[in-house]
């Protein structure tokens, strides 16, 4: 009986399930573009699954399926009933169900990416859903955003500042953004991207790759670490 309860968390791979990576951030900052980029660069070497959380219907999932970056069957969409942050933070049941469905159908997987619906700066992933999370900002909101902080900016395992190609157009100073972010992030990494110019998001892909390797390594040695609550 006890084992069955544990099964609720462990998916197909007996040596630990896939790393669950949350990608959050404000509307239009480039989350879906980043997911697509990661699928492009990691797809050949990793077994992937993607869960999208759209505000309306399944647009992001459709976009990714059309982009042809991943087997469409490996992309599941979750509907969030007007409250995207609820689905990744307060009531993660539907997202967990989607993640585990992917692991059941296609497992073992190395990485499951969960893209949140675009939301405000306070929206972060519950640790019950995501083992690690990336927060995606873009420069078009101005260079003051990192200074304003919020849990997404301060706590995310990786902060991505996207659309650097637009910085000159909107008058955003990247060095200011970099300095402010460093000040509130306590040494956690910040990466600047232009997904328009780098469609494979090399720097982010590298960061994710090392994450997945660490995750696998840790799980191979310590099965206990497979529960999300122990990941921090």
């Amino acid at each position, binding site marked *: 009986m006890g084992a069955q*309860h544990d099964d609720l968390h462990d998916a197909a791979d007996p040596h630990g399930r896939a790393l669950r990576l949350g990608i959050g951030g404000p509307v239009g900052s480039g989350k879906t573009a980043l997911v697509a980029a990661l699928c492009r660069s990691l797809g050949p070497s990793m077994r992937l699954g993607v869960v999208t959380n759209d505000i309306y219907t399944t647009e992001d999932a459709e976009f990714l399926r059309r982009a042809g970056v991943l087997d469409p069957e490996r992309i599941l969409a979750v509907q969030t009933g007007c409250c995207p942050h609820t689905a990744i933070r307060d009531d993660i049941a539907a997202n967990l169900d989607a993640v585990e469905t992917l692991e059941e159908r296609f497992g073992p997987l190395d990485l499951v990416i969960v893209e949140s619906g675009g939301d405000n700066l306070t929206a972060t992933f519950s640790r019950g859903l995501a083992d690690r999370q990336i927060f995606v900002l873009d420069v078009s909101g101005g260079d003051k955003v990192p200074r304003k902080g919020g849990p997404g900016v301060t706590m995310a395992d990786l902060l991505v500042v996207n659309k650097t190609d637009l910085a000159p157009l909107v008058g955003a100073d990247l060095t200011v953004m970099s300095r402010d972010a460093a000040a509130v992030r306590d040494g956690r990494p910040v990466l600047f991207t232009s997904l328009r110019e780098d469609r494979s998001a090399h720097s982010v892909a590298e960061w994710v790759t090392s994450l997945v390797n660490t995750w696998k390594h840790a799980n191979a040695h310590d099965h206990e670490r497979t529960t999300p609550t122990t990941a921090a």
Partner: protein
Amino acid sequence: MRQDIGDGRGDGMRDKPTGDAALLLLADSRLPAGGHAHSGGAEEAVRLGTITGPEDLARFLRGRLATAGLVTAALAAAACELATATADHPAGPYGQADGDGNPPDAGTGAGTGADPAHPWRRLDAEADARTASPAQREASRVQGRLLLRTARRIWPSTVLDTLARAVPEGAHHPIALGAAAASAGCDPYQAAMAAAYISVTGPATAAVRLLGLDPVTVHRLLADLAPALNDAAHAACASLIDDVVPNGPAQNGAIQNGATHDGIAQNSAIQNGAPANGAAAKARGSGWPALPGHTAPALDLLAEGHLNNPMKLFVS
């Protein structure tokens, strides 16, 4: 009524001190079980303009409670009763009881009495038969699956494990709710109350979000429904014992009494349905066929229309 249900096989339920608090946890919209993403047809009704403000929302909620709400309440009560009865005897007397009220035919699988999963499948099939709309069945199963996943971590029990195994694609929501309620220490009345309550609070919240209604006005509507919620929960439990007491005190959903317990049932060799004699009535689960089946044709149309809408916010 509560005492009636609590008596006999369900004994012990009323003694458990956890029931009331557990009911609050179960019915709370913050229970992390995926309910927040379901509007119960309200989103489509808003889109079609049949809910535009508090007045038609009130009528929507009242009608929903009298139909889908009553049915889910009765199914939840039945599931809670089943869970309680089988909790200590996973392979207990239930399966045999099942054979009593029914012919030894292929469909009910009587004779597989030892399998604790069997009565759950049968109860789940009763929910299927009361849900003509495939969109609503799907929404119900998804919510049931999510609730079960959550409940198994909060209130772990063999019964919930059995249910998960019995209906791997996801038990209907009221079935999962009743089983979860039992595991949390609730009695069938409380399970019915939770189901009835959820059947209106979900759509009410959705309407607040979608129409920007004054949340206080909408909560006032819900408060006005309190007597109807009580009635529904009572009627749901009453229906569990209707077959024991023909023409008993059930208010709603009691049509089957007059119609099936005299006349037809004796006159012909009916293979199914509510038992017509006292012996069968004693069998637990034999009352399931006669549970309320109140249908709402408009909800069916709304649920199916919702699926066809490419620009929706809610799952259902």
